């Protein structure tokens, strides 16, 4: 009796390029994010949103509220608030606050799409560590959004600076060390806002694994539920993640301080990340 001899595997596979799974996942996502079409689209949308939101905000700025009531100086839509050192970037922060539900929906949709399209499964065939694949993706998205936020701040500042004279806003304090510090603080607030939104959106997207369900849940939660209940239930601003993030990006817009909001949000993000990782590891990845 004879048999065909099947020789052992002798071909040495090409060595993997350096870098851990997290770094490789980051690089893979970065390729997607930095395509020319993506960059052009992002730049265009960002310019429209930042410049448009700023233009609307500065045009609407008044010294007094309708009826003659004097507005609080910490509200960025007052002339007095815009003349503060941080007035140049205040309107971009306000615009981002308005964009909360949209941002959440976009991120939830992006995460859920990885599952509905089956691309997450395809990525796992290259890098089986699910947490690293997902962590790298989210890190790349947050990095990209941080760059976008920085660009948005600059566009918004330039728009405000160009329009300020026509609205009688004195911009002298914007170009000072205090102005730079205020801009840096606004940027840091925006990054915390983006990271918080990304972590919560990831959890929703992973659990839903469906674009319509995930986006629907995000919109209903961030829109009617948080705002209606938050308005009528006094602890709402202290416990609802959306309202807490609003306290971070637009300080003074809710009764909660930035420190308290950040502390509570950090706890939420840790829990959300843990749920997301557990769900990623335990669930089968099938279509």
């Amino acid at each position, binding site marked *: *009796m*004879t*048999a*065909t*001899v*099947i*020789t*052992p*595997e*002798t*071909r040495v*596979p*090409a060595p*993997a*390029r*350096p*870098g851990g799974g997290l770094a*490789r*996942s980051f*690089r*893979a*996502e*970065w*390729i*997607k994010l930095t*395509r020319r*079409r993506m960059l052009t689209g992002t730049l265009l949308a960002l310019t429209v949103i930042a410049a448009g939101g700023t233009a609307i905000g500065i045009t609407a700025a008044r010294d007094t509220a309708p009826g003659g009531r004097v507005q609080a100086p910490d509200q960025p839509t007052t002339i007095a608030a815009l003349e503060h050192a941080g007035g140049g970037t205040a309107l971009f922060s306000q615009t981002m606050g308005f964009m909360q539900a949209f941002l959440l929906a976009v991120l939830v949709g992006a995460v859920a799409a990885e599952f509905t*399209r*089956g*691309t997450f*499964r*395809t*990525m*796992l*065939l*290259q*890098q*089986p*560590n699910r947490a690293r*694949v997902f962590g790298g993706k989210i890190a790349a998205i947050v990095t990209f959004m941080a760059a976008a936020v920085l660009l948005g701040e600059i566009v918004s500042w330039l728009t405000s600076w160009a329009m300020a004279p026509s609205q009688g806003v004195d911009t002298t304090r914007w170009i000072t060390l205090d102005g730079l510090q205020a801009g840096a603080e606004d940027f840091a607030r925006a990054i915390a806002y983006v990271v918080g939104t990304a972590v919560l959106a990831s959890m929703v997207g992973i659990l839903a694994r469906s674009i319509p369900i995930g986006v629907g849940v995000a919109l209903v939660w961030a829109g009617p539920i948080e705002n209606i209940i938050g308005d009528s239930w006094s602890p709402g601003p202290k416990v609802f993640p959306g309202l807490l993030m609003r306290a971070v990006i637009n300080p003074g817009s809710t009764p909660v301080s930035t420190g308290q909001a950040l502390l509570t949000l950090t706890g939420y993000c840790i829990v959300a990340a843990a749920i997301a990782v557990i769900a990623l590891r335990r669930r*089968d*990845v*099938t*279509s």
Partner: protein
Amino acid sequence: MRTVRAPDLHATPTTVNAAAAIVAGMTTTTSSAIRVEGLTKSYGGRVAVDNLSFDLPRGVVAGFIGPNGAGKTTTMAMLLGLVEPSSGTGEVLGTPLAQPSTYVPQVGALIEGPALYPGLTGAENLQVLAAMGGKDKAKIPELLELVGLADRGGDRFGQYSLGMKQRLGIAGAMLGEPQLLILDEPTNGLDPIGMREIRELIARVATEQRTVLVSSHLLTEIEQVCDWLVVIERGTSVYAGPAGEFLGGAEPTVTVAPERPADLATLARLFAADGREVDITPDRLLVAVGDGDVRIVAAQLNRVAHEHGIVLAELGQRHRNLEDRYLKVVQGGIR
């Protein structure tokens, strides 16, 4: 030429596995690309894969066949770490199934269809995969050439035809020169030309000692490219071994078709009663010749039919193909 006897087609998985082990044991240099033992996956009360065992030597092109819902995709997903087995053990490229992070980088796979980013071009999608797997992206033009997409690599994936998507998916699986390729229904949804393209592609990539496991329910496709078979039904292995052995070598059969289709079952019973091994297809009977002479057997069958007043419209000779054998094993037949 293999001269190993085929395992009993209705043997238990353990016996099938033992037969495969005999094959492996005859040569000291043989090792398994895939080996699973008692692999089971249950979803609630539904068992998708039931105590599946088989052994796949390195260097073969293996067809993984079974009816829709037999558990082929679930098995492949378990081999790739996408689905966690409920029980059972196994190894892929010598590494336990529980450690997919160790062996998956050496495995190329296309499972449940080519799922890539529709807004990215073919080449960009391969760049993303190469980056994710830490593989050399310099090979991408070569791979696009291999799968016949060299001139379409700059087009968006969303604009590709299904056949082009499947080919790009195979190119993605080929990144990093994997030792093992696992392809799940790569011809699914393709027209005959697309099927032929994929078949030729599999034949091209199945070189240099690379092991290929390809699932399909299109048996003619499998028959043309595979030299090894794993047949499963309801999640259980019914055969694992050389394709030639499954087909029964070159054993000829006599095909018999009555003039009236209604006589097909009667004729089958008559031949079976005459001690013949008979398989029924929708329009004809396949009668095993065994050790006899084809012409004599054909004459005997003709005589039996004539004695019972059945007129034959066809009486011919053919070799068994995979479909005949598969239907016999999976669906059973009159013996």
